[in-house]
Structures are given as structure tokens and as C-alpha cells.
């Protein structure tokens, strides 16, 4: 079965940095990767985390006031 992941995209690099810092501080799984073109045809980086972390990430983004573009569930990019 194809693995699915949660992807969080950001309008700025600073937003991605804030995300990584907050996730590290709260021991949340995930890492920054280049944004897959299936998500957006731009460049930049996104946060990739296990699919089951979506709810926790949505809560964290609101609580820590992190600027994001969107949160997506998708097949793990290859």
C-alpha cells in the first residue's frame, strides 16, 4: 500500500524555519524537504510529516501563529 504523508507549505522561508523550530521544540516528527511539484509549481521548502500528525500540526500552526500556505495529505513524494 502506498505510504501517505502530511505536507505543510509556507509563503516564506521564515515560515518554514518557524515550523521546524516549533516541531523540534515539541518533539514532533517530520523534516523540511523541497516542495514537490505536485503540491505547487514554485520553489521553496515544505514540512513533511507522518499522515497521522495532521491534527497535531494544525493545532500547532494556529497556537504558534506560523504563516502557512496549506496542509495536504498526499502520497509520499518520490
Amino acid at each position, binding site marked *: 500500500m502506498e505510504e501517505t504523508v502530511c505536507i505543510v507549505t*509556507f509563503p516564506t522561508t521564515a515560515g518554514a524555519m518557524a515550523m521546524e523550530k516549533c516541531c523540534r521544540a515539541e518533539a514532533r516528527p517530520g523534516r523540511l524537504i*523541497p516542495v514537490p511539484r505536485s503540491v505547487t509549481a514554485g520553489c*521553496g521548502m515544505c514540512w513533511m510529516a507522518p499522515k497521522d500528525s495532521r491534527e497535531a500540526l494544525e493545532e500547532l500552526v494556529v497556537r504558534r501563529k506560523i504563516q502557512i500556505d496549506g496542509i495536504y495529505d498526499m502520497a509520499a513524494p518520490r
Partner: protein
Amino acid sequence: MIYLDNSATTRPKPPAVGRAILAALEGFGNSGRGAHDEALTAARTIYDAREKLAALFGCNRPERVCFAQNSTEALNAAIAGLFAPGDHVISTDREHNSVLRPLYRLRAQGGEVDFVPADRHGQIDYADFEKLLRPNTKGVVCTHASNLTGDVTDIVRVGNFCRTHGLTFVLDASQTAGLLPIDMAAQGMDVVCFTGHKSLYGPQGTGGLCVGEGVELRPFKVGGTGVQSFSEIQPMEYPTRMEAGTLNGHGIAGLSAALDWLNETGVDSIRAHDCALARRFYESVKDLLGVTVYGDFSSEVRAPIVTLNLGERDSAMVSDELERRFYIATRPGAHCAPRLHRALGTEEQGAVRFSFGYFNTEAETDEAVAAVKTLAEEL
């Protein structure tokens, strides 16, 4: 060499600053360009610096700390980004050309600008802000401390004036960032422009602007951002809105190390040290025959600057003699502050500025006093 030109740039820098720059030169990729470890190392360091600066200036959000090359670029971005033809802006005679020239350009483009006048002692009357108010007044741009006299502006008073009348308050903190307390939220500033290489003790080529909540600036530069590449316009989210092109990541790494040093040493301790030396110098030279000191020394809240002239001597020649004969580095001339020199009556003579930093000592200060005494006796 006794270096007393710290208001031009602090020297030396804390050793950790050079180490951080070297490590960055060897290790950094380009922040926001790719997600490999080298790019992320740069991006993390830059973001850390934003957090430290936001905390230092009472800026609500680290992403509202936007980097620039220096105060001048930040002030250009703030003034061009906030005001338009038809707008009226109030400033003061105490400003540096980094404020004056962007305002003169605004005026040439159809804006209106008035300056709170300085008297022959370099002092301003805060009641004049009210007198200059017009229906189309949009903002106030002023310095926190004069780079010529070290006199400090009462920013709480100016902030209250701006809040009362719904004006945008842009502060030039070139001489005070890292030296005097700055709290944007508490003191009512909308934009704080700073440089990294003066009292923040970072490298040249670093600086920026902190943008308050609700303040909308038009982008000053547009270009590559590493994000939203297919958009034809500059991304409007801060800090990217104000940052086009590769940042000075190596310099910002040095600035970040300088901010650590600043926080460990303490802004209050640095100010107490620097101002004690400036006061020691001032008290020793102010009554010498032939010496004229400029500025208001009745207040203890000052930038650590003592500016003087010796008789009618050309300030450039005095500064040159201080260097050649006494090995003391000072700054003569106009200091990019033409309106204040006119007010002080020193347009022709200029003035010699002695400015003190954390790495100066009492012994160096006393040597400078002795040099001024010698030159005064020779008048």
C-alpha cells in the same frame, strides 16, 4: 591607535563575531534556496537572528524583522514603502542624510516634508510637532539619537503624538540599537530601522527594519525570493515582502553572534560603560579655553558621543592631527548631518566627534583628554 569613532562603526567586534562569519563562509549554502543541510543551516541561523532582533526591539513576530544592508537601505525602504506624493511627513533638523535624502526625494516626487527646527544648541521643541501637523500628515520619521551630538529624542513623546493623530512612526535607531531600550509595542513605533555594525557590534553590510503589526509597506526591491517563483509580483508576506535577492547570510551569522554577546554582556552594562567614558571625557574638556562642546549634557540619557571644536580650527585638520600626532581616531566634518550643523553654526568648520565603545578604556579616554588639552593650549 586609540579608536574613538565607534559611532561610525564599532571596533573591534567581539571575537565570536569573526568566528561566526568564518564558520558561515565555510559552511553556509544559500538560505531559502533548496532544502539541503547547507541551505538549511544558513536559513536556521538567519531565522535565529530574526528572533533575537525581535526580542531586542519588542517586535511581536520574528518574521516582521526584515534584513537590509544597513540603516540607510532600511530607511529608504520604509519611507518609499509608506509615503506617496500628496502625503505630508514630519521629521527634524537632527536627522542624518539616511533620513533626509529619502525625504527630499519624496518631496521632489510631490510629497510634503516639514522639519522640527533645532535651535543653536541643537535642541528641538516637541510642541513644534503639533504645530507642523496638517490634514494630509501621514507620518513622522526621526532619529533616536543624533549622530552628531548624541542628544536623544524622547521617543515616548513622539510615539504618543503619532498615536494621538493616527500617524505612522518610523524610528532611525542607527545610533541606539543595542544601546538604549527600544520596545516598539510599548513606545509606539511602527517601523524601527537599525544597522548591525554600530552598537549591535555586528559586521558591516547588516541591518534591517522591524515592521509593526498592521503596517503595510510597498516592497522596495523585487526579485528572487526562493518562494512563489511563478508569481509576477513580490510575495506580500513578511519578511519576504522586503527581501529580494540573496541575503548577507555570512554577515547575519556574525550579527547573530554579536547579539548573543550583547545579551550576555547586557545592554544596560554596555550603555553604562560607554556613557561613563563619554561623561569622563566631557567633564575634562568642556571648560578648557578654546574648546566648544555641542549638545545637551544635562541628561544622562545620551549616546556616548562628545563633539567639539578647538577655536576656529578646521575640524578636519584637528582630526588629522589627533591621528598623526596622538594616534587617536576621530571623525571630523559634517557627519552627514547638514541641517544640524547649520543649526549649530558649524557648517563651515565642521566638528570633531569622539565616540566611545565597549572596548574603550578609562586610560584611553584620559589620553584623549590630554591630547585635547595640548591642542587647546596651542591655540
